Structure formats: C-alpha cells, structure tokens
C-alpha cells in the first residue's frame, strides 16, 4: 500500500466521519433541514419550544 493510498483512506474516512457527525449533531438539535440558515428560527424546529405555548409555560414556571 503506497503513501497516497494511505492518505486517501484517512482523508476519505475523516470526511465521512465529520459529515456524519455534523448531520447527527444537527438532527439531535432538532433541525429538520441541514445547513438551513433559518433552521434555528424555523417554526417546525421551535414548535416544541416557543412557537405556541412552550415558552409561555416555561416563563410562567420561571415566575412561580
């Protein structure tokens, strides 16, 4: 196995690893669309947090 092959294997593995890790992390954050600049503010992403009553309930709890 020559040096180019070893480097290529490492580079390919690293690229795939980081791509998969990025997708996993984004999905874990609840983002539906990877890379979308408005994913944080997307009502779908925020539905469970603030779009309707989530934040109000949270704030009421904070006040209590």
């Amino acid at each position, binding site marked *: 196995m020559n040096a180019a092959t070893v480097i290529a294997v490492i580079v390919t593995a690293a*690229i795939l690893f980081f791509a998969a890790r990025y997708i996993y992390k984004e999905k874990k954050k609840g983002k*539906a669309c990877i890379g979308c*600049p*408005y994913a944080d503010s997307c009502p779908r992403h925020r539905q469970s947090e603030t779009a309707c009553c989530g934040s*109000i309930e949270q704030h009421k709890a904070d006040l209590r």
Partner: protein
Amino acid sequence: MRIAFAGNPNSGKTTMYNALTGRNEKIGNWGGVTVGSKEFQLKKEFAGDKEVIAVDLPGAYSMSPFTPEEGITSEYVRTANPDAIVNIVDATNLSRSLFFTTQLLELGIPVVVALNKTDINEKEGTKIDAKKLSAKLNCPVFETVSTENKGLAEMIDKAISLAGTSQTAPYLQADIDLHDKNAVDAEDRKRYSFVNGIVSEVETRKTLSAETTSADKLDGVLTNPVAGILVFALVMWGVFWVSQAWLGPLVADWLVGWIETFQGWVAGQLENSPAILSALLADGIVGGVGAVVGFLPLVMVMYFLIALLEDCGYMARVSAVMDPIFKRVGLSGKSVIPVVIGTGCGIPAIMACRTIRDERERRATSMLTTFIPCGAKIPVIALFAGAFFNGAGWVSTLSYFMGLLLIFLGALLIKGITGYKYRKSFFIMELPKWKAPSLKFAFRSMMERAKAYIIKAATIILICNTVVQIMQTFDWHFQVVEEGAENTSILASIASPFAILLIPLGFGVWQLAAAAITGFIAKENVVGTLAVVYALTSFIDTEELAMTGGANTVAATMGLTSVTALAYLFFNLYTPPCFAAIGAMNSEMKSRGWLWGAIGLQLGTGYTIAFLVNQFGTLFTEGHLAAGFVPGLIAVLCMVAAVVLIGRKVRAHFDEQYQLHKASKAAKATA
C-alpha cells in the same frame, strides 16, 4: 428579564430583534414573515451586565387574534408577563399602528414605543412630535431606524430601566359584553377616534394619504389582474434568464474549472491506488459533490435577485395580483405568501401557511405549495435546461409557471373532493412602501443561502453520493461489479423495479430511477447521483457553458431525448418534496388523511405530467406514441379512479355529519 417586541406586521420587529441580539432571523418587506415567537439574549453592548432576553413576536393588528400567528402574540403579552414591552410602531403609518399600542398600554406592563422607519418619514416630509406623543400615550417614545441601529441603545436602556414597573393606560376599554358584536364594534370605533385624535395633534404630513402619488399609479398597473400577471411573468423570466442563462453560468464557469482541476489532481494522485478508492474519493465524493457545487453560482444569483424583489416591495404586489385567482380556485389570498417563500425552501413555505385562518385552505395550501420549485431544485432545472435545451431561460420559467398552474388545478381538485363552495372572503395585505432594495440585504441573503447549500453538499449530499457509489460498485455478495455487469450492482437491483414503473414516462432505466429516489432525501441529490452513476464528473463545460461533451453526448450517455429529459425534469419537480418538507407538512396539517392525500396527489401529479409530456411530446416530435403507453394510461386512470372514490367517500361522510333530519338519515343508512 424578558422584553417582548410587539407591533403591527412589517413594522420592522425582526430587523430590530436581529440588530439587538446579533441573530439573523428571516426578514422581508411585507407582513407575515414571522409566524412564531423567537427569543435570544440581547447583545452586551445593549444589555450591559444584565441578562436580558428579547422575545420577537409575530405581527398583530390588535389583541383580538384574527390569524393563528396573531394569537401567539396576543397570548404571549397577555399571559407570559414579560417585564417590559417594546412596541414597534411603523412611523409611516401612525394611525393604523396606535390602535394596537393603546391595547398594549392597557395590560399594565411597561411599554416603550419605538417609532421605527423614521428615515422614510424624513424623506417624505412627515413629522411626528415624539415628545407630544409620549405625553399623550403615557409612555416613552423613541425615534428609531432598525436598519441603521439608530436610537436602539437609548430605547432598550429605557425599557430595561422600566422593567417591573407599572403602566398607566391613556385609554381604557369600556366594560362591555365581549360577546356582543355591536358593542365591540362601537368600542373599536371609539378607540380609533381616540387614536385619530392623537395622530392629528402629533403628526404633520407633506403628502396626504388621500393624494394619488406616482407610486400609487405604479401599484395600479402592477396589481391590475391582466397587466400585473404579464409583468410578473416578464420579471420572473428576467430573473431566470440572468441567473440560469447569463450571469450564473458565467460565474459557474470559473468555479467548475477549479473543481475539475482539483478532481483531476485527486484522480492523478490515486493512479496507483485500488480502483475502488479512486472511485469513492475522486468520483463519488469530489465528483458527486463537485457536480452539485458547480451549480452554486446559479443558485446564488437567483437568491440575490429574489431578495432584491422582496426588499423593494414587489413581491407584496404579486400577492395582491394573485389573490383573486387563488380565491377563485378555493385557496386563500394569503396562499400567495407561502408560494413566494417556496421559491426559496419548501419548509418555511409550508410553515407560513399558518397565517391562513381557514383550516381547509391552510391544509390545501401546505399540500400544494411545494409544486413551486424550491432552491434545491434549481440545479436539477439548470442541469436539464443546460444539457438538453442549450440553457434556455424558458425551461425555468416554464417550470415555475407550470408549478403555479398545478397549484391552481390541485386546488380545484381539492375543492371538488371536499365539496367546497366559493365564498367571498377578504385578504387584507398592506402594500409596503416602494424602496430602493438594499444590496447589503440581498448580498447577505444570498451568502446565507450559499452557505446552506455548501453545508448541505458537504454533508447530506456527500454521504448520499458515497453510499450510491458503494452500492454501485458492489453486488450483494460484496464483490466489485465487473465492467459491463453494472446491472448486478446493489443499486441497480434496488432501483430496477422502480425503473419498470417509469417506462411509460420515457426514463425506465435504473440509473435515473435511483437518482429520482435519492432526490427524496434532498433534491440536489438528483444531480449528485446522476454524476456518480453516469461517471459524469462535471456537468458544466467550461468552454461552452453547456453540458460536458454537448447535448448529444449527454443524451447518448443518459439515453434521453429532449422530450424524455423534460418529462424526467417535471417528474422530479412535481413528485413529493424531500422528507424534511413532508415532515413539515405532517406537523402543519395535523391529519394523517390529509398528509397521505398530499403525498398521493403529488406522486400522481408528477407521474401524470411526466407521462403526458413523454407520450404527447414523442407523438409530436416522432409521429408515434412512446413505449408503455397502455400500462401508463392504465396507471393514470387508476389514479383518477382513486381520486373519484376518495371524493365520494369524503362527501358521503359530509352528508352523514351534517344531515339534520334524523328520519332521512336513518332511511339513507338502511338504503
């Protein structure tokens, strides 16, 4: 500490929120861009050492919600007890804005009024006496310009200092029966006369709103039912021509040159390495991702132009001109907004449907809005337009107007199925003032989209292309597929059954079927997968600004004619969107029946359109019908039968549900 930002639609709340928090939330020069609440900590330069959370709320005209997103605002300020409210008032339309202000002042929470867009007032010669207004409203009033950060620091300082104090209302609603419509109307009129009294004392206008200005005359043309649509068609053609036939490919030329060189270099370095490694890295990762990234300039130019159109206020005029047509086919006038947003991305477009009050109209709009090709479909359109139609701008224009036509036809179909009758409804949308579009805003919007595109290409598309490359390289025994035996690969064996179904559409080969399937993960995948399965490393020829090797070579490689290429393009554009958008539809429709109906309608539409284009196109160009006409016709007839049956079933339940006469209901049931 929480400070809520509330005000009328398009008063500049989100622009102010972005300036104060450093966030980059979507803004637009029309009402209804923000449909959910957002919160984030204020920047240190505004909040100092204090922890202050800014809450951006959707626009509302009053505390009595008319649409779901107005309900969010009303509920928040009423029940979440923010420490202070910043009421953003559009200084160019004071009398309309202060109605909501006087309601907010009644809540007892300290209010600070931000007289926003005062720069426009200066240009128009309108003067507002802020001190006098402050005295009339019993609350501090600051002149602000969100886009220039003017007056924001003083305003937010005041809001922080007032947090937790009480507020005295200048006008108190009388103790009326809120169920009595007449009493409520009378009370609203009293409030309006109070507001108008204040406005007449504090505001002096150079141009009265009753006068007809040149902008009004322009609006008259642009919102005319005939001229408005013609102008819209011309504008969109210009956008597509510049982005996909002129400037876009010109920039793409340079980018593709770099990608090609890099790919050649990678392949050269791996000359002595195992073939599978070269295929995976040079062809799958660099080639596949490079093929998608090669279209980036086209996408960027298009987003730049759309952002300019949005910012100058033209898109709001488009909404007004489309309104009567949308209402005629059973949708809401507000359905125009999701459709326009859908040119960028289907997910926020589907979410924007929640501004539509009527449930049936809301569901129908979210079902149909993805017929408008989103940004992810631009590479697919550009690829086929470039390869088979010499980059003609009409392919893109046709794709978008075909999308609009399908929305109208789909709406009529849904109207027929649900037994909906036309009723008069009102769509009130404020036409924002014309303004010179901000190049900075358009550039930022374009760069954000470009970043998203690159991230998507480097993650989802990259992984998909790698998987496709592996599935194409190996057979089920994990042996490398020999040259000439590609049909034995894992990918071929999975895609082949689907390919059979596509024979009547003119593209019944496993490679094209595989590309269409991966498109459901992300539509850009269609281009990436085609690059991998046909080993076409770059689609844009740097010399000819056309498909590599010219249209004939590509046609030979893909086995497509111009007609079948158009059928394949339409199939990819009008079948269901990506899974993420389907998920958005699910959460918005809140009904399994409607969701499956939407998926079925989109599958049926994409299949039928591709079938008609292929069969009639072949008949027209070659004088005979294409292969698989009879099975294709049977499939289309089955879909029609399914629609008829569903319609009958829905209307039968409708009768059961609303039949008043019990005897007749029982008799019907027995019969």
